[in-house]
């Protein structure tokens, strides 16, 4: 598989490490009243679809950026690659 890095261009997946579902960016609010439940679901329960899946990849042997990769889990086809930073910012997180 080749990941088309938004800054560096096409790179072999051997340069990356996959962390899993991109939902991990959306850490629940620890101050919320139902924080225990939310953290349990966020950390442990997975949608795990057969088809399009958004996930976090870390460019360990490269620029060490975090990417959000949208991939088809049935065909290995990569549909979209974004910097995790941009995804988080678009949701009003980070600086």
């Amino acid at each position, binding site marked *: 598989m080749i990941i088309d890095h938004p800054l560096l261009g096409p790179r072999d997946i051997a340069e990356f490490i*996959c962390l*899993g579902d991109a939902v991990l960016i959306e850490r629940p609010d620890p101050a919320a009243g139902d924080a225990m439940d939310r953290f349990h679901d966020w950390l*442990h*329960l*997975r949608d795990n679809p057969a088809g399009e899946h958004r*996930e976090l990849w870390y460019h360990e042997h490269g620029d060490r950026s975090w990417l959000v990769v949208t991939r088809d*889990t*049935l065909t290995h086809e990569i549909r979209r690659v974004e910097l995790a930073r941009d995804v988080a910012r678009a949701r009003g997180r980070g600086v």
Partner: protein
Amino acid sequence: MGYSAFRIVREALTGHRGWKPAWRDPEPKAEYDAVVVGGGGHGLATAFYLAREHGLANVAVLEKGWLGSGNIGRNTTIIRSNYLLPGNQPFYEWSMKLWEGLEQALNFNAMVSQRGVLNLCHSDAQRDAYARRGNAMIMSGADAVLLDRDGVRRMCPFLDFDNARFPITGGLWQPRGGTARHDAVAWGYARAADRRGVDIVQNCEVTGFLIEGGVCRGVETTRGPIRARRVGVAVAGSSSRVMALAGLRLPIESHVLQAFVTEGLKPVLPGVVTYGAGHFYVSQSDKGGLVFGGDLDGYNTYAQRGNLPVVEDVCEGGMAMMPSIGRARVLRMWGGVVDMSMDGSPIIDRTPVEGLFFNGGWCYGGFKATPASGWCFAHLMATGDPHPVAAAMRLDRFRTGAPIDERGAGPQPNLH
């Protein structure tokens, strides 16, 4: 009719015309006492023990493809009971005991071969960890022998003992571990269950659950609705998709695990050997091929094929442990989709939907579990209570803070 040496001789003398199909091909009935979804090893074993141990005769196994098309026919066939944690070890040792009597119980040659499993260690710390694991095994009634370097050398002189970076310092050996013929395990359970009246229905995919007032009353299938008083799901790599049909989200991700076989060689390996400094395990099949594997590909997938970086990584592990393997040609490789759970351990439990039971999350290691998994799942489905050796394999263990994390990797499925 049963299989016996006499029967083989008789068939040989009469042109092998007397062999019959090993199980029937029945039409599904409208209603059963119990339905098991998934005709892999675990589903078939569950049906067999439901019939034999709990006297349920009106049972069906529903399989979307053909028997043996899933992970039961894709794995590297290693059986062992060398776990550490109290939630796991007694369960796997019970499985080992069932393996030891399996062929007699099923009247089927599953080629169970207790040729031994040797885990190598490369440092003092790893040796201490193996000593502790060996003690945990012995406490559960299993067998374990801690070998020093010379002990390992006597058993496997072909390993790379002069490796400067990862010198072999010893190993943990389980003499009763070994291998079994994976397809034959499915066929043996299928035949034995069929002979006790279980309907094994192939080409019958479950597409939904009949849930009435929060109670599961059966399943929707590609061959029509089938009602049942209890439904047990054991669908290996499809767990998330199938349980989503009942509205459940699971602590599971689907990952591909690859396996490899070389050309046939003369006997070289005495048993199963695993590398302690990387992830690599190898045994030799009865036809002579080296059967080996290593890590997962590490990202969610339902494609039953992997990618090349892991092929390279697995082969590097093999070369580091046993340089002579470099001369062997790989004939075949394939992948299977496994349920990676958040702590690397399985789930055998009731679900929030009454009458619906779940068995899954076997990660890398569910083949060895086949007999005990079937035994415990049948117990749960028949009695409503968990079997004592599987009592820790709960669905809610992450919520209650009681995960069974053998690897100590936390909720990171691709690391287990």
